[in-house]
């Protein structure tokens, strides 16, 4: 399916995961990391995926983020099935549609906070003037204007994660995928980070171990042994 071909039934859904399974080979043994997982994410929705270690949370997030391909099933982002896309098209999806937030920030160490935020826009060939304006705006939103010229090693864990949030928002993505975004932070900083993500109003999936973080989302998907155990809506 081409990138611009849309599935008309999915107009309100920003993401749809349909019967996705993922198998790995460990030597000669096949390990099923995900088994027939299906769910969807609506525009502006913030959901969390929880589960014990090895339940397949990060695997699912990587599949949605086009970092990996499922063994079977389909993943649609804004109506585009990403499984069948080639590497070039997947790069475009990662750049334009998805914003990643990692547990250990994964900022480029040689670049300043400003340059880290600027980088995805640079990859998207946005004009310099526009990029500068947007990067400054994003750093202002996450409260880091005065730290814009500092490199990651000169920032605290919370500040680094705020830079990562600003970077994930740089290209106005359709979905933010956050893998344990508060895992390396203290409770207070973790709360701040979740608030920043919430305030961005972008459809977000947070993978977490932390029940407090999960309760801050509108829907919790419980994963166990690669399958969805239950989906809980939070009022």
């Amino acid at each position, binding site marked *: 399916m081409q990138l611009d071909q849309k599935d008309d039934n999915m107009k309100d859904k920003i993401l749809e995961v349909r019967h996705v399974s993922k198998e790995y080979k460990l030597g000669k043994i096949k390990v099923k990391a995900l088994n027939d997982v299906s769910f969807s994410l609506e525009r502006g929705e913030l959901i969390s995926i929880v589960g014990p270690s090895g339940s397949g949370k990060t695997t699912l997030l990587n599949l949605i983020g086009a970092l990996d391909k499922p063994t079977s099933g389909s993943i649609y982002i804004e109506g585009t099935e990403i499984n069948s896309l080639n590497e070039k098209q997947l790069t475009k999806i990662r750049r334009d549609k998805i914003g990643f937030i990692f547990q250990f920030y994964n900022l480029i160490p040689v670049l300043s906070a400003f*340059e880290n935020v600027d980088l995805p826009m640079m990859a998207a060939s946005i004009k310099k003037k526009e990029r500068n304006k947007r990067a400054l705006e994003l750093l202002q939103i996450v409260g880091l204007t005065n730290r814009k010229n500092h490199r990651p090693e000169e920032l605290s864990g919370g500040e680094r994660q705020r830079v990562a949030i600003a970077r994930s928002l740089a*290209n106005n993505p359709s979905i933010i995928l956050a893998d344990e975004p508060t895992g390396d932070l203290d409770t207070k900083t973790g709360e701040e980070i979740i608030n920043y993500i919430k305030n961005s109003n972008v459809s977000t999936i947070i993978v977490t171990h932390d029940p407090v973080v999960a309760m801050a989302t509108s829907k919790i998907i419980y994963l166990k042994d690669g399958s969805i155990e239950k989906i809980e809506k939070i009022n």
Partner: protein
Amino acid sequence: MYKKMKRLLNYGFGILLITFGIILTFNFYYDWFKIDFMNDTYIFLTGGILLVIIGIYLTLDILKKIGIILFGISLMVLGLFQLIHGIQNIVNIADNFSNYLNIAELFIGGIFLLLGTIFLGCFLLPVFIKGLAFILSPILTKMKIIVYRNINRNKKRSQNTFTMIALGLAFIIMIGTVLESLDAGVYPGAKLELGGDIQIGEIWNTHVFGYLNMSNEIKQIDHVKEVIPVHVEWISINYNKNFSESIYLFIINTTEYAKLHSKNTLLTFIEPKGISIDQFIHLLDQENSTIIQYELAKETNIKCGDKVNLSIDSFNTELNVVGIFGRMPGLRFTFVDYWDAMAVIISWKTLFNLMGINASEYDSYAGSRTIAYWLGLDSIYNDQKVISILKTQVYSKIGVNLDSDDIKTARSRVEEYGGIIKVINGTLTNILLFSLLISLIGLAITMFMNVHQRKREIGILRSIGISKNEIIKMIFSECFIISFYGLLFGTLTGIFVGFIMINYFPFIYFLPAIFTIDYNLIVLTIFLVFVFTVISSLIPAYLSNRISIIDAIRSKR
């Protein structure tokens, strides 16, 4: 704890070096310790300063930058001293080949100089990189900032790569330049020694062979272009009215001499400066003029424009000094600094004027006084043809068989010296090939490690939507910028050190050198180093791009 220990060690070692350096430096001036081996002042002067600077570098953080610059400069100074000292000592090798240490000293000096220059190059790296990144920005486009930051903020990595490229290349080019220069000097050197392509007669031993009167016959022989009849007298030169010395007087044919040697770059003229060989030689055509050897001028304090009194053929005459020469063809003793081998030159015309000889008598007089001929040929490979005719002519004229003492050719000299040059060439070529191999392997490993260590960075970049092509472009650009700077700096440094080595090389009669750049070697090494650099960085970049983004992000490097 470890850091504290390291710092303490740094301080201790630094202060020790500073103290030792100061003692060594001042010992040079005040000779505190009466030890003979400290007489090599150059080592202790520069070595002392070097130690002080390393000491400062280790002890004080704030002076590190200045320390680096001074360290580089002092390495260069030490290198220069060592180089010149080594070169001067090579003169001894001319007489005694057992002193191989002097050659080692020469190369140690060269390496010090290379290291110093490249050390400074490392310091200038960020400035240069900024300029180059700016120039390359239309090609780098999106990745410009990350390329620039990567090179500058991973300074150690960049400097290591730069040093590896520049040092290897500079060393190779330095040796290549020395080789090529030695090679270029062989034939002009032989011609300089013999006074032409062929020398007939023994200037030193006039009673064995001489007083031929056959200029005209020689001129008729095929392949002979210039014929210079030479007369040599042992005369007395008077200076400062009260002093006189016995020296050699050479009487030559200026026009032919200038023509034959007009392209020989080994000739040196001390005064007047900035004139061509033709102009210098033709100064002798002025009435009552002479040119004198530099060593003689120095010893007797004679300058251009002065008058000297010469005693020739039992009469005294005053001549104007119109030039001072360093090296002139045919005057073998000008290569060594013996007081009893000093020379002045006048033209035949001046001699005839002084002796009141009529124009009609020129040829027969010159012929009867000629003790040797210096010949110029159309090609050195025709020397045997010319010699065979000459032998017949001389035999038919005076009934003498010319032997190898009476007749010498530049080509046989080249073959004779070629043996020595070949030994030097062989040794240097081996060093050259070995260093090329080592630096290419080292370079490949450095580049491979550089990219291999960046697997995680590549994973992150791909996760935020940077394409594989952009990443390869980024790695290529980084590698291109560093290797370009390394290649440029290495090439210039190699040529510079080679130039210094060759220009300070003493003129030994069998080892003349003319500074010549080996362009083929330079192009070949630059190409090889560049290709190796690019391949050894692109292969790991390509492989890193192939592994999954998840694995790349998870990797620790």
